[in-house]
């Protein structure tokens, strides 16, 4: 019974495929999986938009949307209808082909990255040997669509927003990759299902999730910072800051293309949270060994929605970072910390089981963090700002 609840989607797929001749089954299975992903994640996106607007509203001491449906739950339906019926305006001198392709490239690249996430026991679309690398490759492709959007609009605000966004995404891509490498080192594989299985072990009632180790916690925090920056989410949302750049690189988009960009951004958040869950929070494994009877996919999606809540919380609470503060933070603080984290992970592995690994690794990480933070603060010149103009 428990096994059935856990594998309910796998069994459902097998039952649906049993109606087809045997030759068609592999292809139809893949199509079924793809359709499931295309249906589930936009539905979660709709739920998240309501959650975000209500959540931000409550943080800002207001109610948020409450007209459409009970407690404003049907707001995404209203938003969808609005975006479908709005006029699609393309500027006269804009590059029409690129202007059209940019949201498509974004959404396609982001949907592709869902293919390697293990959403439950035996629930991966494609179990690739180099799955993690595939995910990052698809993430890198989204940067190009941001640039295409900004450049094709023939608008200085869009171009500025796009260049800021691409610079930010490139810088934090390095941080993202480096903080994931420590996980790969310890679990010994780039295959995401293997990484989850390594974390699915329990000592007593406590799980072996990587976030409960010193290097894992440091890595997870850096991963969260990099993920927030990669998806252009507050406090790193200068490229699309509403009070700064009109709407950044999607200034000239209206109607359904704007909705596609919005969808792409939120799906990117889902994908990156899904990867963070897989790498650090144990993927589909339960937090305590006695909770193993709850289906694995509930844990995965629960952790995903928890990550979304943390993103929304950060958006409502933290002020926006300036562009140079953002870049300084990435290159001068977080990147050296990821390198130190890598060495600490190796040290963890070499010290073996026992108290030494916990004490030494924690001590090194805390010491480096405090020292680097102090050094950075001391070099901050709090005086009149010196400007450097572009020639």
């Amino acid at each position: 019974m428990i096994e059935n609840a856990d594998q309910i989607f796998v069994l459902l797929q097998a039952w649906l495929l049993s109606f087809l001749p045997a030759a068609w089954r592999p292809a139809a299975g893949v199509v079924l999986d793809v359709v499931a992903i295309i249906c589930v994640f936009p539905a979660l996106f709709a739920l998240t938009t309501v959650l975000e607007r209500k959540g931000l509203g409550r943080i800002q001491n207001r109610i948020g949307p409450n007209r459409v449906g009970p407690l404003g739950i049907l707001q995404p339906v209203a938003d969808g209808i609005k975006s479908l019926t709005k006029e699609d305006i393309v500027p006269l001198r804009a590059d029409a082909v690129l202007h059209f392709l940019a949201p498509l490239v974004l959404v396609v690249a982001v949907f592709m990255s869902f293919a390697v996430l293990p959403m439950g026991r035996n629930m991966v679309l494609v179990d690739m040997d180099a799955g993690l690398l595939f995910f990052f490759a698809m993430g890198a492709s989204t940067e190009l669509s941001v640039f295409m959007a900004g450049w094709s609009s023939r608008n200085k605000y869009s171009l500025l927003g796009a260049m800021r966004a691409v610079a930010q995404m490139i810088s934090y891509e390095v941080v993202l990759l480096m903080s994931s490498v420590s996980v790969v080192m310890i679990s010994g594989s780039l295959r995401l299902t293997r990484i989850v299985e390594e974390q699915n072990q329990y000592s007593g009632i406590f799980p072996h999730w990587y976030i409960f180790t010193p290097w894992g916690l440091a890595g997870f925090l850096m991963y969260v910072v990099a993920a927030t920056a990669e998806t252009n989410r507050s406090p790193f949302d200068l490229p699309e800051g509403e009070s700064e750049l009109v709407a950044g690189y999607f200034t000239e988009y209206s109607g359904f293309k704007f909705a596609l960009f919005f969808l792409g951004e939120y799906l990117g958040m889902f994908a990156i949270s899904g990867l963070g869950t897989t790498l650090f929070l144990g993927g589909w494994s339960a937090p305590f060994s006695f909770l193993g009877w709850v289906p694995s996919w509930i844990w995965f999606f629960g952790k995903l929605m928890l990550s979304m809540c943390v993103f929304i919380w950060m958006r409502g609470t933290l002020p926006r970072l300036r562009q140079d503060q953002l870049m300084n933070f990435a290159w001068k603080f977080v990147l050296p910390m990821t390198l130190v984290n890598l060495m600490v992970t190796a040290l963890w592995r070499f010290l073996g089981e026992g108290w030494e690994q916990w004490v030494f690794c924690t001590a090194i990480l805390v010491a480096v963090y405090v020292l680097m933070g102090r050094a950075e603060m001391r070099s901050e010149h709090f005086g009149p700002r010196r400007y450097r103009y572009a020639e």
Partner: protein
Amino acid sequence: MRDLGHPPVWTGKDGKPMSIAFYLVAALTVGGGLAAVMLKNTVHCALALTVAFAGLALLFLQLDAQFAGFAQILIYIGAVAILVVFAILLTRSQEAPRGGVFSKSWLTGLAIAAAVFAVLGWAVLQTANLLPRVSEAPVVTVQQIGTALMGRYVLPLEIVALLLTAALIGAVIVAMHEKEGAQ
């Protein structure tokens, strides 16, 4: 047994003719490359080059070289293409050059390119006859690549790391000189 007298045929790894997927990907790559040199708008050329990179990555994936394929996407499309695009943007060469896109001595250029292609093709086909016919492609895991990099090829790895560090320091120095010049 070596097939020395066998003329080269367009067969895949198991003797069957190359699949239609290969021809499509090859057409995509060649089309992207052609568009990259023939389009007027420089940013369009850069994006067509990106399509050519994607085609190359797909060819790697067709040969089951997963790591090479994804690394190609990550590095070429995720970094090199963006670098090219930034370079075009910052040097403001978006308009077509005044003298037209094609150079005047295009016939000579075509002849030289054809000659180089002929030499390369001849060299490849000569060695293709001498290779043993394997029944299936070898499966190379990421672990094997890692072990090879850290074991047999560690010296080239270190030299490349040194080269990259030198490039990084050079870039910082060039940018810093500008900073000294400005206010």
